[in-house]
């Protein structure tokens, strides 16, 4: 715990794996970080990703992958500690600060991220982004949600439906 950068715990250099994005960019990361992905963890446990091979990720482009890995590298030490039962409050606060800043990004990046997290089965990341998007929705009327998320203006028909709903479910509206 005191040496969070020591990777998988082996003496000497941590084991590295190579991930290849859909646009053929190669990323070399510690196996411990990549293993936050349940999908990758299986491949890595099977001995994949080492040497010159690399694990192809045809569904994740390089911009998204680099962001995903930023998250994994930051969260790997805590994950290696089994959810960090002995992490200090300072460590936890630092991770929280990182998370808050991490999702402070363009919406399109958020959606690419959540799809990648879903694909790679990185539960913490999926949940972090989902919560961020939910925060953008809460406290808003349907019309405000549409504007926030960049939907086109509703058709007259849709508008009528929204009005009817507001009348019927008045309790859900301010």
């Amino acid at each position: 715990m005191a040496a969070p950068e020591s990777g998988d715990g082996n003496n000497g250099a941590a084991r590295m794996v190579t991930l290849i994005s859909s646009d053929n960019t190669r990323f070399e990361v510690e196996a411990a970080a990549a293993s936050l992905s349940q999908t990758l963890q299986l491949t890595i446990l099977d001995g994949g990703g080492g040497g010159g091979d690399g694990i192809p990720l045809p569904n994740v482009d390089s911009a998204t992958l680099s962001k995903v890995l930023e998250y994994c590298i930051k969260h790997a030490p805590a994950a290696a500690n089994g959810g960090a039962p002995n992490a200090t409050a300072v460590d936890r606060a630092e991770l929280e600060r990182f998370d808050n800043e991490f999702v402070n990004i363009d919406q399109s990046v958020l959606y690419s991220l959540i799809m990648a997290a879903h694909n790679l089965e990185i539960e913490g990341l999926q949940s972090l982004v989902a919560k961020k998007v939910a925060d953008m929705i809460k406290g808003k009327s349907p019309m405000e949600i549409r504007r926030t998320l960049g939907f086109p203006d509703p058709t007259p028909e849709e508008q009528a439906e929204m009005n009817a709903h507001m009348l019927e479910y008045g309790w859900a509206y301010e």
Partner: protein
Amino acid sequence: MDRGGDPTLPPPAKSPKLSDTTTIAGGDPTLLPPAEFPKLSDTTAIESDTTTINSLGEDLLLAIFLHLHSLATLTRAAFTCRAWRRAVASSPAFRRRFRELHRAPLLGLVAEPHRDALPCFAPAPRRDRDVLAAIRGGDFSLTTLLDPDDWAGDAPLSWRIHDCKDGYLVLLNWDTGLLATVNPLTLQFTEYIEMPFNRNTGSSKPGCPISLDVHLIFSDEEPMSFRLVWLFHKDSEVQVAVFTSEQEIGSFTHG
């Protein structure tokens, strides 16, 4: 799930048009659409490279909705567009999970301070916007029972609270032999039921029916419809009358 475009490009100022994909559901706007509509991802595959919230599949959209903090928020979100409404409508598993994560908040307490007045409502002392909106949007004074044009329009105000369950109040009015089920949030669903026995024979005479109990039975999935089961005792038999929220469906005896 990459859709083959280049998501590294900056997003255009406006998201692509959804209008062609969001005019599918017709009919009564207050009804949830049937579940057999195509999946969100099929109907919103749009001519653009930008990743929008509608690029996500229904499973991810619902994963986001699970993080909404109240039913009111989910209700507003679901009516943002038809594809979202469809996503919520077509997944009972999601709605079950959402209910598990978001227990219904206490809105307040009902009391009966006077014998011949309607029950009184005291709001819960919470400063929650959604709870407040619900209280303000509902008829917790139960004025529906005063409506002169309604079935109980001329009934004396001797309504007694019998039960309170899943947002419904069960009120009994022995002076008129009526039972009322009232949901203060959806007044159009106030129902009146005539007591399923002759209550004028006087409760002290032998052989007259004695009401034992009334139960409301709900399904989580259809909170707007319920069954009411009335147990009563007559001539050494226990009788059961079952009402749906629309009408009595059957009455049978049990020796």
